[in-house]
């Protein structure tokens, strides 16, 4: 059970980091110049 939990956490962190990185890039790329 703990093994599955660890695997799930790994994928959740990966998904969250990719989402944050994408939205961060959109924010910076879309800055008014």
């Amino acid at each position, binding site marked *: *059970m*703990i*093994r599955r*939990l*660890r*695997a799930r*956490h*790994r994928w*959740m*962190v*990966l998904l*969250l*980091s990719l*989402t*944050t*990185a994408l*939205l*961060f890039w*959109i*924010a*910076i790329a*879309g*800055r*008014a110049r």
Partner: protein
Amino acid sequence: MSAFYRAVNWNRQKFIYDGLLAGLLLSYLGLFVGITLTRDPNATLETASIRALGSGALILLTITLAIGPLARLNSRFLPILYNRRHLGVTVCLLGLGHATFALIQFHSQGNVNPFVSVLTGSADVRKISVFPFEWLGLGALIILLFMAATSHDFWLATLSAPVWKALHMLVYVAFGLLVLHVAYGNLQVTTNPLPVFLLAGATALVFGLHLLTGWRERPLDRTEQPAIADGWVEVCGVNEIREHRARIAMVGGERIAVFRYDGKVSCVSNVCQHQNGPLGEGKIVDGCITCPWHGYQYLPDSGQSPPPFTEKIPTFNVRIRDGRVLVHQSPNPPGTRVEPATIPS
């Protein structure tokens, strides 16, 4: 570890830790306000304080979240992990201060209720430069407040460790929201590239460290030790385990920790009952297996916490044959005493 609840179990280490934290934090806030007022002629004491509190909260949250994976990579970071909860509550207080002052400074001068103003305002979700970044900060603050309110061990015991841990994993969502709060807020009005690089660096540090440690552990979870006979699994050689330390292995689908101590070997689950900490990365102190995360203790032969504590973890039957440690892959019920295997002299 304590037999009863107190707001904070103060000891010398916690006094030093919190004293150092308060000193560094006040120095940072003072320096930030001083430098901002000196270098930016348009800045007022109020706006400088709001920025100091907000940036302080984000820096402290970055450090707090980096401690966990750093402690997995190098045991020298473990002492900082010990009192991490106080860092988390401090982040929440800084965020609350930032939000309160921002509400007063930017939303209390008009005819509209400040709370209505902050949630509606003149923002437009369709335009990046005027995106309602306050919503993101508010979302993060709600999560941090909820976590700070339930941070005490009373709530850990009441909610149960799995539920508490799952709820507190929301801190990563809060971190992501705070990064975007700054990216869609302050970074939209500044032309200075330094804050952009600092924020990107902090984000890469937190998520990068977690992904690195998570993926480093993947092979261990995938290398199941095969049973050799009647459910017995060969784990390692006795001499591969250091005295008062453990060897972690994958047996029966879960991680186990084989401890060597005083000429004997015992085997328990690798998962601490408190917060799923890795017991096998700890050591035996005063005859007890001691979790490296928060110091929860268990007797190696029975998996029971010493009285008056009641925590129990599963044990495993263990034997030594030709200098190799064999473990039975079926766990015994938590707290079951198992005769330790004696190491032949």
